[in-house]
């Protein structure tokens, strides 16, 4: 459905924040993209949407194709057009993703008009339908509400409804639940899952929360310092992660059920974009790193059928907590 | 030290036009400091035989109706411009900043102070300055006071706004949680963080003080006419606009250049130091 090849995003002060990211997402599949803050998740998604913040960031290389059709050089409003089977996106901050001076109905209608070309009562009807689709209570009433009159969870639903108005084939969700409470988060996650199945969309779900990934994704991409370092079905990632980083990450999750006072840690911090050298970006924090790791040239290797990793010495075996 | 210098210069290095502003500003300060060395004539020297001469090799900017050399007067005028600028800025800062901080730190007192500021703000600025000048009498110091009062209000407002915001900052709260008193908070947390918004404000005030002073001079109520100031030169020579247009051109140009360069400096500082305060500092012109 969506295929991304070798996408590289470069900042104006000439660092790559995303380097050579490739991925494929199929219809009806939820792919989780996890990684720490600043590793380039949002930049990847914005590159797909064609919404990279100019002039600070630009697409340096790579191509993006939708349904086999290259959309790399299309402006954003063409990428979402129904005709070519669009991409839609929901953003991290439900509080700021909606225009504060327009009603929910207006903002929905705008999107509907672009994609369905309807107007008048049909428009209103469709708007209400979309709100109902995201399980908004009193949908008809809420059309006239302003964003500030809604709670965070409701706003996130509106944002999702707007994305759905585009009748997208691919939905990109950039940390849509980070700002929400766990109880609300679980509602939104369930909603996305349901919609994905119902409309058989391809979903790229971006998060830094491994728990969320475990709950929702079919497949997981782990990102570190601008690169995809591991890709595997969700079960494999959590059971038998191959990349030392992934393993470290999983090991340092707090676990109240197996409560011990000390947690395992990964030493150090993720590098900032300008600190990334040519070699493996994780080498400085990696227990298995050797001199070779610090020079360029690590290749993507397939550990298993659909389990790949970007590491010279991937680990095997079950992770024990 | 080098680092501080670099941080200070950074906003200018990033933008060529800001560098121009800085250069003009420095040139003006240089002219003001070394005026007696630079100028070919005594700016007050009357020469009844060389009246209203157009720009020539001997009088680069021409002469006025007293036969005084316009170039020398323009150069000397930068002294007054500098004095007015520094004076107004200092006055505005020395009064506005304490008023603003006090109001923000002690809301009860602050209510009254800010109402007083509101009242002052409600007067059209130039009229306020005019009125004060007429009361105090003409003079450089009084002009500084009169214009200073105008900018005291904006400075107090900005200080008040920024201090309120700073007061709510987590690090201020953190300091309070350690037992810090008001004086400590103001000295260690509020003031240092006020420096850059105030620096920005200061450069705008400096720029607009020039326009304000020129307006007062133009209405004949600014610096005493025997002091060579750009505004006075304009006021004195405006009747010659048809006969000797250059007489108005050069002093006017100097006012524009000074205000322009300081605006550029302020703009660059603001963009660099305090993008957050853009709105608070958006409309400083009051004259």
């Amino acid at each position, binding site marked *: 459905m969506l295929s991304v090849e070798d996408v590289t995003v470069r900042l104006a002060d000439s660092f790559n924040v995303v380097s050579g990211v490739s991925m494929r997402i199929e219809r009806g599949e939820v792919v989780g993209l996890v990684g720490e803050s600043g590793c380039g998740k949002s930049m990847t998604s914005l590159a797909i949407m064609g919404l990279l913040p100019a002039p600070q960031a630009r697409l340096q290389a790579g191509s993006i194709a939708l349904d086999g059709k290259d959309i790399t050089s299309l402006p954003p409003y063409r990428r979402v057009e129904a005709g070519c089977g669009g991409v839609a996106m929901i953003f991290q901050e439900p509080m700021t993703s909606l225009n504060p001076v327009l009603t929910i109905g207006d903002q929905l209608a705008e999107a509907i008009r672009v994609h369905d070309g309807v107007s008048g009562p049909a428009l209103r009807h469709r708007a209400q339908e979309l709100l109902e689709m995201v399980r908004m209570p009193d949908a008809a009433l809420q059309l006239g509400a302003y964003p500030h009159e809604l709670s965070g969870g409701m706003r996130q639903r509106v944002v999702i409804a707007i994305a759905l108005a585009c009748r997208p084939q691919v939905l990109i969700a950039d940390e849509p639940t980070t700002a929400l409470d766990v109880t609300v988060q679980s509602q939104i996650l369930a909603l996305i899952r349901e919609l994905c199945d119902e409309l058989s969309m391809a979903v790229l779900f971006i998060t830094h929360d491994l728990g969320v990934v475990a709950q929702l994704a079919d497949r997981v991409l782990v990102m570190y310092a601008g690169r995809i370092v591991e890709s595997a079905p969700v079960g494999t990632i959590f059971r038998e992660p191959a990349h030392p980083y992934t393993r470290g990450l999983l090991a340092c999750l707090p676990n109240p059920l197996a409560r011990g006072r000390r947690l395992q840690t990964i030493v150090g911090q993720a590098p900032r974009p300008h600190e990334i050298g040519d070699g493996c970006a994780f080498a400085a924090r990696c227990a298995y790193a050797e001199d070779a790791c610090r020079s360029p040239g690590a290749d993507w290797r397939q550990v298993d059928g659909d389990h790949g990793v970007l590491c010279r010495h991937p680990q095997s075996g079950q992770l024990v907590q | 030290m080098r680092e501080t210098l670099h941080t200070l210069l950074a906003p200018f290095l990033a933008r060529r036009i800001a560098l121009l502003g800085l250069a003009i500003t420095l040139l003006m300060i240089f002219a003001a400091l070394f005026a007696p060395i630079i100028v070919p004539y005594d700016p007050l020297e*009357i020469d009844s035989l060389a009246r209203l001469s157009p720009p020539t090799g001997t009088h680069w900017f021409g002469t006025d109706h007293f036969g005084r050399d316009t170039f020398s007067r323009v150069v000397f005028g930068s002294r007054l411009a500098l004095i007015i600028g520094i004076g107004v800025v200092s006055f505005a800062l020395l009064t506005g900043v304490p008023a603003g901080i006090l109001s923000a730190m002690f809301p009860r007192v602050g209510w009254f102070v800010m109402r007083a500021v509101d009242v002052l703000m409600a007067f059209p600025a130039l009229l306020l300055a005019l009125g004060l000048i007429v009361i105090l009498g*003409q003079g450089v110091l009084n002009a500084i006071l009169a214009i200073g009062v105008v900018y005291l209000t904006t400075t107090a407002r900005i200080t008040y706004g920024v201090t309120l915001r700073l007061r709510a900052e987590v690090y201020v709260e953190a300091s309070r949680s350690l037992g810090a008193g008001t004086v400590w908070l103001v000295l260690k947390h509020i003031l240092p963080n006020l420096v850059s918004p105030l620096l920005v404000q200061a450069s705008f005030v400096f720029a607009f003080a020039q326009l304000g002073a020129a307006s007062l001079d133009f209405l004949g109520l600014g610096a*005493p006419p025997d002091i060579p100031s750009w505004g006075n030169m304009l006021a004195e020579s*405006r*009747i010659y606009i*048809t006969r000797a247009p250059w007489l108005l051109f050069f002093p006017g140009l100097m006012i524009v250049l000074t205000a322009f360069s300081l605006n550029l400096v302020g703009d660059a500082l603001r963009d660099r130091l305090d993008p957050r305060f853009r709105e608070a500092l958006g409309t400083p012109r009051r004259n």
Partner: protein
Amino acid sequence: EGTLRYATIGEPPSLDVQVGTASLASTISQHMFETLYAFDAAYDPQPMLASGEQVEDDGRTLVISLREGVPFHNGQEMTSEDVVASLTRWGEHGSRGGLLMKNAVSLEATGKYEITLKLSEPNGAWKNLLAFPNGGPVIYPASVASAAGKEPIALEDYIGTGPYRFNEWKPNRHVELVRFDDYAAVDSPADGYAGARVAELDAIRFIPVPDVGTRVSGIQAGDYDYAEFIPGDLFETLDADSAVTVHRNGAPIYGLMFMNSKDGILKENRKLRQAIQAALNKEEALRISIGPEKLWDANGSFYPKTSVWYSDSGVASFSEGDAEKARALAEESGYDGTPIKLLVSTNYQFHYDQATVFTKQLAEAGINVQLIVVDWATLLKKRAQPDQWDIFFTHHGSVPDPVLITVLNETYPGWWETTEKEALKASFTGTADIDARRNAWSDLQALIYDQVPAVKTGDVYSYNIASPALKGIGDSTVIWPHFWGVTK
């Protein structure tokens, strides 16, 4: 035909010219109000509202007959009753009324068209005083004059006999006069202010345009027809400009620096005053402040050569510009370098310019001057306080009789009052004989140069500019421009 637009330097104060002396007020109101006599081009008073006179009793009794059939703007005919009421008010409250009327024994209407004024002493200047409209005895209806008393006359009572009548005063915008169709003109050709006044224009509008550049470009652009107070330096350019006609005023004005005789360092210090006088080079000051030589005259006499009052006594001291002599005199006077406070206003550019030049000249003679630059309103207030100043700068317009010169007035700031002066002044006013009066004036002028109650700074011939379309602007000897006989 049409409306004449006159760009004035500012707003006139009250147009009640009996009380006020502002020249703009005179310019405007002379179109509305008339006096019994009016000056001709040679500054000889000629009958205007009067038709003739008889002088009896050695000049102590004046019987003046009035023209018949002269209507006021309100339609009433002017009679002796109106004249008596007007002259009475003028005598009591008019700014120059006292000069004539303080010696009045009686003033009566001795017929419908005749009045009789009896004086305790003869006054040689009587006709001049009755003819001079500035602060002078213009004739109002009796009801207006007696109702107003010492207060300025209200707008709705601006009723006179002149060729134009008051129409409206829009503050800040304009004062407008319109033609008075029933005007009764004198039956003689126009001559100076005298003779027939023919109103050709429908209206005259006096528009305040304080900025001089704007006044000039306004004439050039055709927005105004006539503009006053044009700086000397523009004279040559404007003279050459075909879009503008220039009208040089034949009656000069002159700057006056009054010395404080009541208080301060100059009080009774005649030597120091002479030192100051000796230091000044008035030519330089005039050249700088006025510019073209056509527009000034370094003339020491209080009257131009063409005047009957011209005299050269004392004028040798007029513009010596002798720093050495001044230094010596100052030393003799015991001057210790104390700054001398010179009060000057910037509202009149040439005051300030000349004061600046004089300051420089005095400094060269070792005399320190501290310029106190204020606006005109402040100056007027300050000069009444003797402790605030040593010298103040003002100017004086042309007056047809020396008795009107403020230097001679003891109550005028400066307060010059010496026995020599009193004696001379008495012999000057106490006779109607013109030669005796001229001699007395000549001595007074010499005394002024000796005692230095004030320093004359030289004659300035102001000029006004007009659009070339304006025809018939009278000869150039007038003090205030008038627009009867003018067409557009």
